[in-house]
């Protein structure tokens, strides 16, 4: 019983003593949020000297404070967005609170991942672009905002899309153009923009057409100019494989395209069959019956 009375008295004494200690030791009034890099102040109450710490994963600051006055922080001092503890350490008490530093609303830089840097023409959603939007202090701006994407190969051939950021990021897929060329892929958010260059190259050959003519006891076999299905010339150096079959024997020759055409001399066996292929595309077949 005596113990219970003692506890109650002790509790009452603490209940009255605690605010007094705080009043003597001091306290602070924190803003709930501070914009990254902006000036701000933290008013304090009480008297005497104290030390104010501001600590988070993004920054750590310390101020000597005269309690009863405001601790001021100039422009650019606290600039990393995130969550912070503020700790006011006086001679007889400590006051602790928390607040957030929010990113500046104006985009300054874009982290733009555009892939791939080279791809065949005519691919649906073949190009992807992901944008992370940052402020001047490289904080991710998490408030939703529109990002415009524009992919242009030549004047008049432009794809554009606008996507609103989610968690500070926006992404889109784009089709590669039907015609080969160097494409500019531009992302914009506010005044900030970023450009990537994407090379759009011809796809696989659409068809291979060969012809043959006798030449000094041999057969001169050559392709017509090799193009993809969009009419783009297949790049020089692409290999065309010629195959000649005669009396159960097979002869194979790999020839690179030169100026869009592959040409080879093959033995002129009567009754032989000659064909050509590149990648997964096979061309027509010629049967050589000899000179007429």
């Amino acid at each position, binding site marked *: 019983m005596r113990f219970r009375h003692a506890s109650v008295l002790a509790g009452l004494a603490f209940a009255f003593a605690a605010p007094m200690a705080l009043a003597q030791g001091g306290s602070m009034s924190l803003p709930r*949020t501070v914009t990254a890099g902006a000036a701000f102040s933290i008013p304090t109450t009480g008297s005497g000297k104290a030390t104010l*710490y501001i*600590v*988070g*994963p*993004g*920054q*750590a*600051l*310390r101020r000597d404070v005269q309690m009863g006055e405001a601790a001021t922080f100039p422009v650019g001092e606290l600039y*990393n*967005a*995130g*969550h912070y*503890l503020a*700790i006011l*350490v006086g001679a007889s008490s*400590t006051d*602790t609170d*928390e607040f*957030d530093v*929010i990113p500046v609303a104006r985009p300054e830089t874009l982290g733009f*991942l555009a*892939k*791939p840097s080279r791809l065949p023409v005519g691919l649906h959603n073949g190009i*992807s672009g*992901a944008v*992370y939007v940052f402020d001047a202090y*490289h*904080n*991710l701006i*998490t408030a939703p905002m529109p990002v415009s994407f524009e992919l242009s190969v030549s004047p008049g051939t432009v794809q554009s899309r606008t996507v609103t950021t*989610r*968690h*500070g*990021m926006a*992404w889109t*897929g784009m089709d590669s153009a039907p015609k080969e060329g160097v494409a500019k892929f531009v992302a914009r958010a506010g005044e900030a923009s970023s450009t990537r260059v994407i090379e759009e190259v011809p796809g696989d050959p659409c068809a291979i057409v060969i012809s043959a003519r006798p030449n000094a006891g041999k057969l001169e076999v050559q392709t017509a100019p090799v193009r993809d299905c969009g009419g783009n010339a297949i790049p020089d150096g692409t290999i065309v494989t010629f195959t000649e079959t005669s009396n159960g024997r097979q002869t194979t020759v790999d020839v690179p395209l030169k100026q869009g055409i592959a040409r080879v001399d093959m033995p002129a066996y009567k009754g032989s069959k000659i064909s050509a292929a590149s990648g997964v595309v096979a061309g027509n077949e010629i049967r050589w019956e000899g000179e007429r």
Partner: protein
Amino acid sequence: MIRRLLVMSFALTMQAAALADQPTVRVEPPQLQGSRPVEKQTETSVIRDYLQSWKSLQSALDQNQAALLDAYFVGTARDKLANTIEEQAKLGIHTRYLERSHDLQIVFYSPEGLSIQMTDTVEYDQQVLDHDKVLATKPIRRRYLVVLTPSDVRWRVRIFQAEVGSDPM
């Protein structure tokens, strides 16, 4: 016999203590909104590496050693944490981040597989110390936005930022 019982009892106590130190981890189904789906193996390794990054962050900010960040942080996230460590060391303080729980969700996986974005509603105690004197300890609940990118052997955190107004305690 008594000695064996004592050893077993000690071992069990240590195991329980070790388990008690582990944060609870909850993984929500990915909410990708049209981006590339995440393979189970990728999800497992991303989450494993991200949780390890917290261990690395804890040690680095407690011991004021930026090199401890290198295995799990890269780019902006590493630079900002290293800067904080430098400031802490100058002020003679260090910080303990004692994680209690993580609630994770993958929200974006880039089509070419070069970045993964996650949200993590994390509960932790933040304890600030001036040398060995505890200045303050505060329980925190915040949602972090995290972007990880693949490196040679693991996923590393490239962006690590608490979101504002994300459900404070």
